[in-house]
C-alpha cells in the first residue's frame, strides 16, 4: 500500500492539474505503467507507477488542481479499495509509533553518551524526527535557506547534489550551481518562457441581475496562469521599446519556392516563418548584443542562439525552443518546428523543450494581421513580431509598383539593448531577408 503524491515535474511547478487518469480504480498496475497525465505549468506529462499493484484510489478528480506533495492516489496489493484503504492507515500509524519509540531510546542513549556541556542538537533532532516512511524517504534533504535560494535562482533543487550532513543541500551547493549556470551562460534554468498576446477577458463587474448574460468563471489550467503571471511580470519589469520595419518579400517568396522545389522529394516544406526564424538566428550571430539577458543587474550575452517559436494552442500560447538555431540546417528548422508545434498542441512538450530560449519569433501573419507589438519573453532581450505578407504599392526606381511586403516589429528590452543596437540588428535582418541566400550562408 503506498500513496502517490503530486510530483514535481518542472522547475517552476508549484501545483499540478490531474489532466486524466490513465488507470482506473481497480486496474492492475505494473512498475513503469503510465498512471496519470498531469498538467504542469508547462505541459501535460505522463506520470508512471514506481511499483506493481492495483490502483485502489484516485484521490483527486480529473481537472482538479493540487499542490506538489498532496496525495493523488493509492496503489495497493489487492484491487479491493476498501480493505486497502483501512489497512494502509493503520499500518502507517503503527509503524510511526514503534519507530518513534526506537528513536526516543536512541536519543536517550545519545544523551548519556554525550559530552557534558554540549548538547548535540543535530543527531538528537535526526533521531527523534519522524522516520522517513514511504515516499518521504526519497525526499532530498534540503535546508530552508537552500530551498528559498533555489526558488530565487530558478534552480531545480532535486537535481543538485548536497554536501551537508546526509547529503543535505545547503546554501553553498545552490550558490555553486547558480555560479555554474552563470558561467555556462545558460539561461535554461531561468524561468522558462511562455507568452500570449491576448489579454484575459474580464467581464463587466457589478451586474446584480442575471439575464443569462452574466460573467462566468472559466476554469483555466496552469498554462494560462503562467501566461498571466509571466506577461504581467514582463510588462511591469521590462522597459519595452519597439522598432518597425517593412521588408520587401519578393526575393524571399521566390527563394522559398525554389527551396521547396528542391525539397519536394523529402516531403519537407519550409514556411516563411521558418525562413524568418533561421534568418533571425543567423543575424543574432552577428549581433550578440541582442542575444542577451538582463538578470538581477547583470547583463548576460549568450553563447548559444536558441530561438523560440510562439505556438497557439488551446490552453494558451507556448513557445517551444529550437536549440542552436544558428547551426541548424533550414530543413531541420522546418521539421523540428513542425514536430514541436504538433506536440505543443497535444500538450506533450517537455519542459526542456520550452526553456533556454534567447530570442523569440511570434507570427500572426496567418490571421492577416498587418503588424503588432509582442510582449518580451523574459529573460530574453527581444522578440520579433511578424505580420502578414501582403501586396503594397511601393515606390521603386521612381515608379509605383505592387510588391509583396512583410511588416516586422522588434520589441526590445531597453535594459539590455539600446535603440541603435536594436536598429542595427533589425536593419541587417531586413537585408538578410531581402537577399535570402544569406539566410543559409
Amino acid at each position, binding site marked *: 500500500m503506498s500513496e502517490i503524491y503530486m510530483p514535481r515535474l518542472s522547475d517552476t511547478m508549484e501545483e499540478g492539474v490531474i489532466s486524466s487518469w490513465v488507470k482506473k480504480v481497480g486496474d492492475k498496475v505494473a512498475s513503469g505503467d503510465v498512471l496519470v497525465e498531469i498538467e504542469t505549468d508547462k505541459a501535460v506529462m505522463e506520470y508512471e507507477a514506481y511499483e506493481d499493484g492495483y490502483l485502489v484510489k484516485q484521490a483527486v478528480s480529473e481537472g482538479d488542481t493540487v499542490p506538489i506533495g498532496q496525495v493523488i492516489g493509492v496503489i495497493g496489493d489487492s484491487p479491493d479499495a476498501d480493505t486497502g484503504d483501512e489497512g494502509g492507515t493503520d499500518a502507517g500509524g503503527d509503524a510511526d509509533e514503534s519507530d518513534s519509540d526506537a528513536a526516543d531510546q536512541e536519543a536517550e542513549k545519545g544523551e548519556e553518551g554525550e*559530552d557534558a556541556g*554540549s548538547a548535540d*542538537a543535530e543527531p538528537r533532532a535526526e533521531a527523534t524526527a519522524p522516520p522517513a516512511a514511504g515516499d518521504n524517504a526519497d525526499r532530498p534533504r534540503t*535546508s530552508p535557506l*537552500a530551498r*528559498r535560494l533555489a526558488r530565487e535562482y530558478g534552480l531545480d533543487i532535486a537535481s543538485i547534489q548536497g554536501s551537508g550532513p546526509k547529503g543535505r543541500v545547503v546554501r553553498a551547493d545552490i550558490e555553486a550551481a547558480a555560479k555554474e549556470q552563470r558561467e555556462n551562460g545558460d539561461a535554461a534554468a531561468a524561468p522558462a518562457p511562455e507568452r500570449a498576446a491576448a489579454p484575459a477577458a474580464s467581464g463587466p463587474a457589478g451586474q446584480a441581475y442575471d439575464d443569462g448574460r452574466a460573467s462566468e468563471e472559466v476554469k483555466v489550467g496552469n498554462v494560462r496562469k503562467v501566461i498571466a503571471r509571466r506577461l504581467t511580470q514582463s510588462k511591469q519589469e521590462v522597459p519595452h521599446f519597439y522598432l518597425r520595419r517593412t521588408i520587401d518579400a519578393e526575393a524571399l517568396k521566390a527563394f522559398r519556392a525554389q527551396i521547396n522545389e528542391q525539397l519536394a522529394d523529402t516531403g519537407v516544406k519550409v514556411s516563411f516563418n521558418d525562413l524568418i526564424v533561421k534568418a533571425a538566428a543567423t543575424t543574432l550571430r552577428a549581433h550578440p548584443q541582442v542575444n542577451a539577458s538582463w538578470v538581477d543587474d547583470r547583463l548576460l550575452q549568450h553563447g548559444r542562439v536558441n530561438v523560440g517559436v510562439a505556438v497557439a494552442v488551446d490552453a494558451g500560447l507556448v513557445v517551444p525552443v529550437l536549440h542552436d538555431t544558428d547551426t541548424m540546417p533550414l530543413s531541420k528548422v522546418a521539421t523540428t518546428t513542425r514536430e514541436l508545434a504538433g506536440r505543443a498542441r497535444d500538450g506533450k512538450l517537455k519542459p526542456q523543450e520550452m526553456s533556454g530560449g534567447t530570442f523569440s519569433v511570434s507570427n500572426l501573419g496567418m490571421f492577416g494581421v498587418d503588424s503588432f507589438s509582442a510582449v518580451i519573453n523574459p529573460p530574453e532581450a527581444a522578440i520579433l513580431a511578424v505580420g502578414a505578407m501582403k501586396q503594397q504599392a511601393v515606390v521603386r526606381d521612381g515608379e509605383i509598383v505592387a510588391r509583396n511586403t512583410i511588416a516586422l516589429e522588434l520589441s526590445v528590452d531597453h535594459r539590455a539593448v539600446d535603440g541603435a543596437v536594436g536598429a542595427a540588428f533589425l536593419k541587417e535582418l531586413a537585408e538578410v531577408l531581402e537577399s535570402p541566400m544569406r539566410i543559409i550562408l
Partner: protein
Amino acid sequence: MSVITYRQALRDTLRAEMHRDENVLLLGEEIGVFEGSYKITEGLLKEFGERRVRDTPIAEEGFVGAAIGAAMLGLRPVVELMTINFSLIAIDQIINHAAKIYGMFGGQTSVPMVIRTPGGGGQQLGATHSQNIELFYAFIPGLKVLAPSTPAEAASMLRAAIRDDDPVLFLENLGLYNTKGEVPDDESVAEIGRAAVTREGTDITLIGYSRMAMVATQVAEKLAAEDISVEVVDLRSLRPLDRETVVASVRKTGAAVVAEDDWLTYGIGAEIAASIQEGAFDYLDAPVRRVAMAEVPMPYAKPLESAALPSVASITTAVKETLSAVGKRVG
C-alpha cells in the same frame, strides 16, 4: 571613561543612584556591616546610613515582601538576594505579588523595585548554590529580567532597572564580578528589552547572555584567527525578549548557535531557537544548535563542575560543526 570591574560598576551605580534619588534604598542579607557577600555594597552603609542600607534577617520571603510594600508606597528598593538560588524562598512574593500587583489592581500602583542577584556555577558552591534559574522569572509576564554581561552594561542596565516602574530581576553572575571593561562616564541609561549585536560577523550567529555572552565573544575572537566570522548577539534582556535583533542576525548569517549556562531542556535556548525558526525559517541553512549545561545537578568536584558547564571549547565545537554542515571550510 574608566576601566573598572563589573563589581565596581555595580557599586558605583548604586551609589550614584542613591545620591540622585533619595527614595532609592538597599535591603539584603549582610549588605551593610559585612558590606555584601560579594562586596557590591562596600562602603554604602557608612555613606548612606542604616535607614537606606538595611541588613535584613535571613528571611527572603519577608524582606522581598517588605520591599514590594515599600515600592507600592513610593520608594525604590533595591534588594540583594545573595544568590538566585535563595530567590526560591521568595518566589511566591516575586511571582504572585511583585509581578501581579500592577495588573491585578487595575494599575493603581506600580512596583518599582529591583532584585539584584547573582547566578552561575563554576565556584564549587555545590548543586544548590550554583543554579541558573533566571528562566523561572523570564517566564513571568509582569516581571522584567535583565542580564548584563559587561561592566558598562551592568552600569547602564542597573540605572535603567532602578528608574523603571516595574519590578526588575537583575541577574548578575559570580563569574563576571571580577571581569573588567571600559565604562563610560556619561551615566547612560540602557533601553530595557534590547539585545545587542556586540560583534559583527557573517558566517554564523552566536547568541548568549550574562556569562555566556562573554564566553561567546571569546569564542568569536578565537575563531576570527581561523578566518571564521562569528556574529555575537548578547540578549541582555530576557524579558522583554528582543527577538527582532536575533532574527535579523540569523537572516544575515543563515546559521545559529545558542549558548546558555542553564539546562538545555525547556531552557532559554529553546525559546531562542523557536523564535529563530519562526522568524528566519527560510534563511536557515542548518538546524539551530544549543549548547547548555549538562542535565545534572551541579557536581561539586572541580573537574566535574568544569565539565558540566558550557565552555569556550564546547561552544567552539558546536560552531564549527554547524559551519561544516553548511559547507563552510573550518579548521
